[in-house]
């Protein structure tokens, strides 16, 4: 009951966030210098053609009217046409988004699992050599942008050692699974195409790890700090003093309260994965959404820009709601506060 109410409240709130975001991106993309129609048609296009396309896209109308057209379209699921691909933006998104989501999900899992694992080990054995190793690597991970890792991995494991493929999502000799979700790993899993599954995972290792390292280092640092802090708490001494086995104390009574700050940060880090994905996608020639988005911005492809930003906004809002739910599940203090309507 309390959780449902909490969820409903967050959803209503999210609608306003997304509405605000849409107004903002709509204005910014139109205020920027440069004529999108002229850019799309090229300098030699006749004036009447430019005028015609402008009318077709309602660009000759005042801004509020333009926004009204855009919003009413968007609510029907029509995000307009791209000025460059000359296709419905929604189709472009359907094509490019799954590739990025797949990459980001794998990177997110790597980030969460290994970040928490390394952080927990470092925190449990704080100020020993293993802690120092984790801490040094996390510093490096936090300060290094993911494209640097991407280039290093590409050179080292791709070219020099040749352990991993350097580009794309599948090897050319592998039979592609039919497009169901658009995520190659999921599609090949559904159709039982094990060769494609293995090949897709093999292609994903380098870009996903390169993308995950920054967030992973962040999670490790936060988990380490909370674990080593909570290790000194009386409730841990008390549980041990009552003869509860060490392993149970560590894996249950220490880990659960220590995960709360990490999970809160995890949501933010996952959202920033999508932003960081651009250069990584470029380096590994990954036909993803971030690349599509950057190109849209460079070409001032108005509808595509708005759509990309809105999709990212929806992902961001969804991830944050999920994180809040997980935190509420972990922490009764928050859950009970929410139930009391605070």
């Amino acid at each position, binding site marked *: 009951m309390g959780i449902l109410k909490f969820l409903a409240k967050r959803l209503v709130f999210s609608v306003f966030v997304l509405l605000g975001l849409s107004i903002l991106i709509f204005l910014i993309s139109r205020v920027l210098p440069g004529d999108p129609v002229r850019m799309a048609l090229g300098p030699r296009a006749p004036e009447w053609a430019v005028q015609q396309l402008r009318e077709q896209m309602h660009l000759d109308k005042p801004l509020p009217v333009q926004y009204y057209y855009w919003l009413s379209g968007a609510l029907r699921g029509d995000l307009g046409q791209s000025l460059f691909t000359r296709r419905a933006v929604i189709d472009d998104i359907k094509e490019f988004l799954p590739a990025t989501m797949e990459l980001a999900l794998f990177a997110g899992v790597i980030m969460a699992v290994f970040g928490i694992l390394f952080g927990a080990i470092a925190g449990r054995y704080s*100020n020993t050599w293993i802690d120092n190793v984790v801490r040094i690597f996390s510093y490096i991970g936090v300060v290094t942008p993911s494209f640097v890792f991407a280039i290093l991995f590409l050179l080292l494991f791709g070219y020099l050692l040749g352990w991993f493929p350097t580009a794309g999502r599948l090897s050319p000799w592998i039979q592609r699974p039919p497009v169901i979700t658009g995520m190659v790993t999921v599609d090949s899993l559904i159709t039982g195409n094990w060769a494609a599954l293995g090949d897709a995972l093999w292609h994903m290792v380098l870009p996903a790890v390169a993308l995950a390292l920054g967030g992973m280092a962040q999670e490790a640092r936060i988990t380490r700090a909370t674990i080593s802090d909570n*290790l*000194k*708490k*009386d*409730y841990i*001494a*008390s*549980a*041990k*003093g*009552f*003869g*509860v*086995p*060490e392993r*149970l104390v560590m894996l249950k*009574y220490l880990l*659960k*309260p220590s995960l*709360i700050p990490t999970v809160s940060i995890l949501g933010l880090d996952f959202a920033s994965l999508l932003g960081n994905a651009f250069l990584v996608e470029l380096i590994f020639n990954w036909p993803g959404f971030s690349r599509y988005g950057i190109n849209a911005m460079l070409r001032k492809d108005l509808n595509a820009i708005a759509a990309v930003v809105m999709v990212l906004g929806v992902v961001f809002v969804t991830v944050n709601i999920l994180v809040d739910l997980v935190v509420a599940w*972990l*922490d*009764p*203090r928050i859950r*009970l506060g929410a139930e009391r309507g605070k």
Partner: protein
Amino acid sequence: MGDVLLDIRDLYVEFKVYEGKLKVLNGVFLSVREGQRVGLVGEAGCGKTTTMKCVLRILPSPPGRITEGEILFRGEDILQMPPRKVQLIRGRRISMIFQDPTAALNPVFTIGDQLMTVIRYGSRNSLPKKEIRQRAIKALQEVQLPDPERILASYPIQLSGGMRQRVCIAMALSTEPELLIADEPTTNLDVTIQDQVLRLLNALVERRNTSVIFITHSLGVVREMADWVYVMYAGNIIEGGPKEELFREPLHPYTRGLMRAVPKLTGGGIAEGVPGRIPDYLDPPSGCRFHPRCEHAMPRCSQEKPPFLPVTGEHRVACFLYQG
């Protein structure tokens, strides 16, 4: 009095900090007999809790380290036991109530989860789930908590401070230990319920004839709860003996100061107290750690550490005033 249950002999503990080593315990002697209720008195920071954490081997380490000494429980040294054996003593034979019940209860698990885990690992033979639950309910009833079923399903934040401490008492007694260590169990409670909780605890241990170490900084509490008293100062036990004797004739200058510090209802004026404060553990005073604050200090006091020796009968003191 019965056999010696716990015997702490010459215990030294250091804490490693950035600036160096804190020499916190400086040769602690303390013993508890079967059925005895021992009061351990001393200022905040004198090492009472540290000593007790050593008994259960739950001193956070690092930074803490036991450098010397023995802790004999029924003649066996807890400090030399393999972890598996210590595990069998914790909870089952010795259990501890912490000073702050809010800190001692895990905030993200229900009372039921925590209490039932304690009962499960504190019983000698493995019990079925239903039996564990029944024992948990009985334990909560014994500490006079209303509606035990609801409390089992509650999280610590849903209870008041007094209720939380009753839960901790229930946990500590649920396993029927031979020795209960109660570390200032009422200090963090409202004054109005301190007395209630004390009386409850007293009644429960009396009924079971559990041996108790009662840590406090209040002489009033000791007078009410204990039949034997140890006084601690800066990591040393400086005086110990039967309660009546110690209150009638305190020997150590520090104990006498403590007694003078108790405010009286009649007579007026502010109580005297002991001038100065607990020394720095990084660089503690040489010899007797109390000598810089002592009005009877002699040259010898800063050179040698006074041994803890009997003066009359079982009344022991660590002071050169009483040692030729």
